[in-house]
């Protein structure tokens, strides 16, 4: 039933690792691309098989209702992105932006990243989780700089420095959690096992937990891209290869968010600790509004959608901060929908940038005329990301806004203001990109539209009809998150 006949968890971790090793040595990049896809598919299958039977939580490995969603989502997007990347790099090699040597590195790194993220999600040990996220960060740093252009190197450098500080803060938080746990759980690895922590969290010292949460929120929040810790995110998205932008927005942000959620649960379990909600609500609203206004002055198409990712991360964090079954459900839904939509957008943007030979919005125009598939794909994606029906994000935004208004009417003002500002900005740019007189080269695109439209179809379907099991699943997790 599983990928290589070994148990799913090992497969989810080992397949990418092995693939990385092989790909690092494989000279032919076309074959490598195919292998990359195959490996990603295998990982996806393994992840899916986790639904069938999941292992008992060990001190290092945990598969529970919460992270299985993340795992499946990330492996799925990882797979579709690998398909997209296969058609993407072909063009990059043609125009000589990447050489086969670099591609070997690229593919190896891609699988390493997959491994790191799966590890971070699957880890039951907060130390291990930290290590995994650090690996993921470093690999993405290397990928962002892969074009070796001045801009790319600086983006990577910025990402690296800010990321390292984030890592340091997160580690300090982790240590603090251990300190809080030790008197209750006792010394040793036990005190870093999440399941154990969750059981005893109510006995922990609240002050230490608070302190820990502050550091973890800032540390992992840097990865989530919450303002004002976001600085690395736009440039990293804009300068790296587009598949990596897709993975960053679609997955890495989620992984970091997942870490934050884990610790939120921990904190929520302790009656005397501060409520984590308000902190997250404030950060979320800050990111939302900040990003919404930043969208207006963007000249680079990829950077614009990077900011839109910040905006949506803000919404999600806000939702989880609000808490309660409805808001949590909405948050989970929004996170899923955003991963799918945003990666779809980056798929189309990647090809657009390739056919137009630029990422400057000013040089792109009238796409629906010249490249109907790309153009309408982008339109659909932006419509979805702007929270318009009948696509999935509309449902989550509907739930978030209405439930918030019923509970905290005042919070709705900044929320709606931000959302509206974002819609305004997105469509202002979309008008220029997708409509009006065509600008830039009109050569037909050699692109694979399958991943983009698969994602969009999923999002559109989810907007109208959510399968019952999935809903119960999410509702269960929502209760879990409290």
């Amino acid at each position, binding site marked *: 039933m599983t990928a290589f006949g070994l148990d799913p968890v090992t497969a989810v971790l080992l397949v990418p690792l092995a693939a990385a090793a092989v790909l690092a040595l494989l000279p032919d990049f076309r074959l490598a691309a195919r292998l990359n896809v195959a490996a990603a598919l295998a990982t996806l299958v393994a992840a899916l098989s986790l639904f069938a039977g999941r292992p008992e939580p060990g001190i290092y490995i945990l598969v529970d209702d919460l992270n299985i969603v993340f795992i499946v989502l990330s492996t799925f997007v990882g797979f579709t992105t690998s398909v997209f990347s296969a058609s993407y790099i072909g063009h990059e090699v043609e125009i000589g932006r990447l050489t086969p040597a670099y591609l070997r590195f690229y593919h190896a790194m891609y699988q390493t990243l997959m491994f790191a993220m799966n590890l971070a999600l699957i880890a039951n040990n907060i130390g291990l989780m930290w290590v995994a996220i650090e690996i993921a960060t470093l690999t993405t740093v290397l990928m962002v700089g892969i074009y070796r252009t001045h801009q790319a190197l600086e983006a990577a*450098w*910025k990402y690296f*420095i*800010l990321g390292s*500080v*984030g890592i340091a*803060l997160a580690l300090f938080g982790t240590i603090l959690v251990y300190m809080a746990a030790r008197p209750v759980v006792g010394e040793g690895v036990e005190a870093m096992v999440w399941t154990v922590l969750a059981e005893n969290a109510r006995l922990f010292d609240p*002050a230490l937990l*608070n*302190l820990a949460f*502050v*550091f973890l929120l*800032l540390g992992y929040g*840097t990865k989530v891209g919450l303002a*004002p*810790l976001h*600085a690395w995110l736009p440039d990293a998205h804009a300068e790296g290869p587009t598949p990596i932008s897709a993975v960053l927005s679609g997955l890495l942000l989620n992984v970091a968010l997942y870490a934050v959620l884990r610790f939120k649960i921990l904190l929520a379990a302790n009656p005397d600790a*501060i409520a984590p909600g308000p*902190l997250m609500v404030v950060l979320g609203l800050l990111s939302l509004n*900040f990003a919404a*206004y*930043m969208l*207006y*002055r963007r000249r680079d198409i990829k950077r614009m959608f990077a900011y839109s990712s910040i905006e949506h991360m803000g919404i999600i964090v806000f939702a989880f901060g609000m808490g309660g079954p*409805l808001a949590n459900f909405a948050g989970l839904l929004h996170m899923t929908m955003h991963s799918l939509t945003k990666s779809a957008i980056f798929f189309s943007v990647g090809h657009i940038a390739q056919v137009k030979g630029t990422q400057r919005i000013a040089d792109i125009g009238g796409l*629906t005329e010249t490249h109907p598939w790309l153009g309408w794909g982008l339109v659909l994606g932006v*419509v979805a990301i*702007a929270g*318009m*029906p*009948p696509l999935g994000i*509309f*449902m989550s935004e*509907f*739930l978030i*806004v*209405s*439930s*918030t*208004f*019923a509970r905290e009417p005042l919070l709705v003002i900044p929320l*709606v203001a931000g*959302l*509206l*500002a974002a*819609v*305004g*900005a997105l*469509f*202002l740019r979309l*008008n220029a990109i997708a*409509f*009006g*007189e065509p600008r830039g080269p009109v050569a037909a695109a050699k692109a694979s539209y399958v991943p983009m439209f698969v994602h969009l179809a999923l999002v559109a379907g989810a*907007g*109208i*009809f*959510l399968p019952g099991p999935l*809903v119960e699943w999410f*509702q269960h997790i929502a209760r879990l998150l409290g």
Partner: protein
Amino acid sequence: MGAGTGRAMIDPLALLCVAALLATSVAAVVLRRSPFVSPIVYLATLAVSAGLVVYALIHLASGAAPVSHVLPLGLPWLGAHFRIDQLSAFFLLVTNLGAAGASLFALGSGRHEHAPERVLPFYPAFLAGMNIVIQADDAFTILLSWEFMSLASWALVMAHHRDRDNTRAGYIYLVMAGFGTFCLLLAFGLLAGPDGSYGFAAIRGAQQTPAVGAFVLALALVGAGSKAGLVPLHVWLPLAHPAAPSHVSALMSGVMTKVAVYCFIRIVFDLIGTPAWWAGLVVLVLGGITAALGVLYALMQHDLKRLLAYHTVENIGIIFIGLGLALAFRANEMTAGAALALTAALFHVLNHSLFKSLLFFGAGAVLTATGERDMERLGGLIHRMPVTSLTFLVGCAAISALPPLNGFASEWLTFQAILISPELPQWGLKFSIPTVGALLALSAALAAACFVKAFGITFLGRPRTRAAEVALEVDRCSLAAMAIFAGLCVLIGILPGFVIDLLAPVTASLVDNRMPAQSAVPWLSIVPIAESRSSYNGLLVFVFIAASAAIAALAIHRLASRAVRRSDPWDCGFPDPDPATQYTAGSFAQPIRRVFGTLVFRAAERVEMPPPGTLAPARFEVTVRDLIWDWLYLPIAAGVGFTADRLNTLQFLTIRRYLALVFVTLVFLLVVLALWP
């Protein structure tokens, strides 16, 4: 939920029709290469809407009990609820009547569409969206379909996207639509309460506090009003409606605005119980202002379609006056008055959807024939396009509220409703209602003036351009659509009693009272309250006018000379061969601009008279500004731009400064922790 009763008596015809529409739009994408795609799509929509018209008529006439369905869509734990009661049935009728007409018109005019692939897929989707809004019975479904409707119409506005004005119009439209949707969303959020009971059944059941009711009403007024085009939320409307293909403009102006009215009625009359009297006052005054301003703006236009769009604003104002009166009466338990006012409003909804669609069809026909929307470049079309001009004339007369046409009947009812309002106890109402009545009268008169201008400049006089000179009458389908609607305008105008009786169950379900049955009244005249008070008989007036005109004509042709000699018009000794010497739209509106202009839109006239002897032409410029745009929207835009610029500097900091941001945040949080109680 309320599905239990609904499941028992399922007849999902309306839903099936919606499904058919959606299927059509998919088919339009699939068949986009086929040469017959356009007729296929429009025939399908025509058939479906016609079916829905029949369905709605039957549902209304039979006074059937509400029909409700639940589909496992939308919010998973709630499902998508649909319910067709009398109100929905009436609006289904209005919507699909307009839709059928538009489809028939497009069946012909669609041939001239140069970007069909940008129209055909969205047109059925647009229809479907409107139909779902009217049937929806839970907050999520109605908002989803509402926004879907906006989105589809946005796509249609963007159909001719190479024109910068259109993309701009589409942009403004979409942002305004988003704003409106958020307002409605908040309204429903408030109604649904914290545990999110979004079903209308549950909302009806829940008792809302007055405060909540007030908030919801305000939000609904802004949300639905922004779609309907209430001043000051109207700015997008005259931009977006003309930008779309004509049959879509007809739908947006004639029908979509009515869907907004439906949403308002559904929330205010059905969901939030009985709001306080001042709610009526607010709606009333807004309606009055909207009516007057709308027609004044319209008078200043010389783009035919934009002029019509502004008139939509005016008529929405008239409708909201009726609704406001109904609210005021209802708040004082004067249900008879409420029924009268509500009937007047709904009647006008139907009428406006008819003649506004008709007029947009006419404008579309002119556009097809001449490629011109600017009246200053038209003229004399009555000779080239007789049928179009006749139907357009009927439309003009109807929208100008001239007896015996339908526009007059509904405005007459509104006046009657105003006339029984002195019984209302509140002083605020006492002072405002006559004033609003005056505004209503003023806007009716100005509307007549405006349509003299519209018809006179466009169809009469001498052609001002070559295009107008060589224009040819449009195809049969378009003509048929226009003729049918013109016929309906006349028919409803002379037999208003039937419509009023058709509306009785609607008002009965909303304000627990109905107007006296009109079919009982002898000679088919209508009597809102009592014979002794007031009555009107469109049929007789029509017959009298026809008879006396016939008598006069006959007598004269018997007795007087029949000789006719054609010659040049009287030129007062100064022959003017050039059609440019005719009165233009601008000069026609000048007296009225002089009267109201400086006050309402800072109209400024600038004359450049070159000194005698020089050959330079004299120049005359008029600038008319939409003050609401200047004073409300430009500042907002400026504010957003300012914020964006200020924040944008954050994109350009050094790494050290970014680190500083992180550091400051950390220290701040630590301080918060340290000071935490």
